[in-house]
């Protein structure tokens, strides 16, 4: 365990996460043709007041568990990411913890899809499992590569190991794969096949009202947390001139988050079986080679 956690960080984390979600939603609306930044806010209020819809034979317990676990997992993952100097929950295995929490999304999507007792959400849920099996291995290898170069699973130590040179610079393959899997784990943009139009919106099809709001907020939270984790993993953490560490962390998080949000309106959705083929035949060997190179550099 690292140094003591400042009290303000515990209070600040939910606020920062909420801010990231809102700004990501606003940005997404702006990137949409004819969208205005206030649109998501209005939509959110509308969903809060909307009545819940129920399908016959729905497994409400599992569906609620799925919907709620999405934002909760994003929040738990955010707890080990250092905002500036120290994370809320300093952990010697922060990288693995982040990985474990982001895998919760598998369960969330499948449960939401299954619980609704409706065909299209179920198809979406299964699609995400297939997509998960495709993106998870390259993603893990990318994470391990960064941890290998730093010699630690602690996100703070990984950030500290990039004093001289950012990992994004000298392990570009791992960074690129990480960005791709960030899209995949938040089923966003080109990786949004589980929510694609050909299954009428997929997983959240039957969700209405606060459930729907929570689901989409959770998705944006995952995207934001994935962007925030890229900062200590590949972009040198809070290090930078003039500004304090937390400010640099935020600036870098936005530098990752904005392109991720932007990509949604620009790139078509990739079918998950095609992505699976690319992931297993191209991405896994590429990340393994990257890890080999990094390993050789570390050994020297």
């Amino acid at each position, binding site marked *: 365990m690292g140094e003591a956690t400042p009290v303000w960080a515990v209070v600040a984390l939910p606020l920062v996460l909420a801010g990231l979600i809102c700004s990501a939603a606003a940005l997404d609306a702006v990137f949409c043709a004819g969208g205005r930044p206030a649109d998501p806010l209005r939509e959110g209020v509308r969903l809060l007041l909307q009545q819940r819809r129920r399908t016959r034979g729905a497994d409400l317990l599992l569906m609620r568990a799925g919907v709620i676990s999405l934002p909760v997992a994003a929040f738990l993952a955010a707890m080990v990411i250092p905002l500036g100097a120290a994370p809320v929950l300093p952990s010697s295995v922060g990288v693995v913890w982040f990985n474990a929490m982001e895998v919760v999304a598998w369960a969330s999507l499948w449960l939401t899809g299954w619980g609704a007792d409706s065909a299209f959400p179920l198809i979406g849920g299964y699609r995400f*499992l297939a997509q998960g099996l495709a993106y998870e291995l390259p993603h893990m290898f990318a994470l391990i590569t960064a941890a290998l170069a730093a010699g630690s699973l602690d996100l703070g130590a990984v950030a500290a190991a990039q004093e001289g040179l950012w990992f994004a610079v000298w392990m570009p393959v791992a960074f690129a794969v990480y960005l791709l899997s960030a899209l995949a784990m938040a089923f966003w943009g080109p990786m949004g096949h589980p929510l694609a139009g050909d299954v009428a919106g997929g997983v959240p099809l039957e969700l209405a009202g606060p459930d729907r709001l929570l689901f989409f907020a959770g998705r944006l939270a995952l995207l934001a947390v994935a962007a925030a984790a890229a900062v200590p993993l590949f972009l040198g953490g809070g290090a930078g001139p003039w500004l304090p560490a937390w400010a640099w962390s935020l600036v870098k998080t936005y530098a990752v988050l904005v392109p991720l949000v932007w990509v949604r309106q620009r790139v078509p959705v990739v079918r998950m079986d095609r992505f699976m083929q690319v992931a297993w035949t191209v991405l896994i060997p590429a990340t393994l080679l990257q890890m080999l190179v990094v390993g050789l550099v570390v050994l020297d």
Partner: protein
Amino acid sequence: MQVVAFWALAVAAVGFGAAVFAVNSMARATFALLASFLCAGGELLLLGLAYPGVLTILMMIMEMLVMAVFMIMYMMDPGGLMPMSMVHGRRGALAIAAGVFAALAAGIVLTPWPHRQGAPPRDPAFALGEAVMGPKMPVMMVAGVAILATMIASVVLATGRGRYGGAE
């Protein structure tokens, strides 16, 4: 605080474990098992085993989701819509399980356990890594070969095209 956490997690782990065989819906059974694993992972965290604990959580989430696919695929009534009994030898199984638990519990209570030797290293995960890459290397190598063998064997078994594959 730790004691409370231990007992809460312990009761939850066993309770969810029992729920696996009590609920009708296969989806619920799978996720009851997952909850039991998460509680066990929490117990490992309590023991100061950060890496194995988090690894258990990570692996079990993925494993149970894959399991859910197979459950739904092979069970006759995955949703539990028509409750039916899928057990055999229930009494005997209960008796054997209870007997095994009683024997184990007696052994646990009666055995004079050795006292603690040594102290936990500062970073147990690091110690584990050094062990499997050093004196415990054969364990790692056997595990690696076993994983490879299982991958090949399970693909050969599960594929419908047999060993020789087919055109895409």
